[in-house]
């Protein structure tokens, strides 16, 4: 049995693992990927100590720091369910079962889907959730960004450098991203902003050929070869049944990162912590690890 299992290896999970290693806990990290949302971020200019660093570079730094300690890491593995036992927690994954005295859930958030016909069929066939990764494949093409917040504007600004035309499909009256980004988007001749507009379906043959959009009950087609979905995020908390969540699906934690189940802690973007930032997730991860360590010391 492990002292601790950490689910997730974004800023929260990695920081928790560094703290757990330094406390010489016997622990395991289970994660789908390394870096979480940080790995997908473009430019980061607000992580103290780095005036400017890219998401993949900061992820590499995090990983290097974690791997300095000899950590038991299960990558490409996904937690599916938790089972509460008398004095332990059983974590079931797509590859096995592990028993632990304490648990830190740091599974982060992933992109929300559109939920329109054609989305599943055309995923990676013109439709993508990551402008940073797949954007360069759309050089010289007409593309649509769906969303109106910061991540949508960030995607649009990355795409204006390479695409021929960028349509922003925004369901609200106005864009909601930061003013500084809105100004940049507005000043680009390549960008067309379609407010009060909803995407209703995606069409094509082998690859995407276009989208159907609806504005004030009027439907029309828009020919695009790329669709970038940036409609927000959802917490990866579905596997954690029995743990209290808020109306957004975020795991409820107190200021000590404790959940409603003794011995189960949570940290970072999967929780209802105020503000979602890399530096906050990292700090929350350290609090959760110290909390788990203290919990275990008291019990033994």
């Amino acid at each position, binding site marked *: 049995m492990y002292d601790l299992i950490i689910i997730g290896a974004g800023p929260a999970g990695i920081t928790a693992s560094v703290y757990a290693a330094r406390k010489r806990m016997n622990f395991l990290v289970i994660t789908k*990927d*390394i*870096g979480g949302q940080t*790995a*997908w971020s*473009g430019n980061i200019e607000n992580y103290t100590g780095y005036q400017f660093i*890219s*998401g*993949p570079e900061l*992820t*590499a730094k995090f990983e290097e720091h974690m791997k300095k300690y000899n950590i038991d890491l299960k*990558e*490409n593995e996904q937690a599916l369910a938790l089972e509460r036992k008398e004095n332990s927690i059983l974590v079931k994954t797509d590859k096995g079962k592990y028993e632990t005295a304490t648990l830190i859930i740091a599974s982060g958030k992933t992109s929300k889907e559109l939920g329109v016909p054609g989305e599943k069929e055309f995923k*990676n*066939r*013109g439709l*993508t959730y*990551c402008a*940073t*990764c*797949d954007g*360069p*494949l759309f*050089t010289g093409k007409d593309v649509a960004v769906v969303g109106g917040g910061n991540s949508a504007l960030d995607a649009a600004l990355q795409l204006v450098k390479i695409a021929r035309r960028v349509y922003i499909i925004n369901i609200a009256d106005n864009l909601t991203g930061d003013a500084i980004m809105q100004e940049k988007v507005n000043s680009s001749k390549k960008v067309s902003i379609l407010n009060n507009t909803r995407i209703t379906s995606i069409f094509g043959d*082998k*690859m995407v050929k276009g989208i159907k959009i609806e504005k004030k009950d009027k439907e029309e087609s828009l020919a695009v070869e790329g669709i970038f979905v940036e409609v927000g995020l959802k917490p990866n908390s579905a596997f954690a049944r029995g743990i209290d969540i808020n109306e957004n699906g975020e795991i409820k934690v107190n200021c000590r990162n404790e959940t409603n189940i003794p011995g189960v802690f949570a940290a970072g973007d999967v929780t209802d912590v105020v503000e979602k930032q890399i530096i906050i997730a990292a700090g929350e991860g350290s609090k959760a690890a110290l909390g788990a360590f203290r919990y275990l010391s008291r019990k033994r």
Partner: protein
Amino acid sequence: MDNKVKIYSIPTCPYCIRAKQFLKENNIPFEDVDVSENQEAAQEMIDKSGQMGVPVLDINGEIVTGFDKDRISQLLGL
């Protein structure tokens, strides 16, 4: 057997970085094709894999889409 490994990637794509790291850790030599700079190679990747996501790995003629560690290990006999 000598493995012939080609990876179609984009510098900013995290799974491309992970896949290349994984190959390096296992001392597998590979040819890295940056499809963000090379439209012809991008089309070659799309034709081979039938999709547009990166990374795509060509391992001795077998196509792997995404950083599918288990399948990559299996094809390389790791």
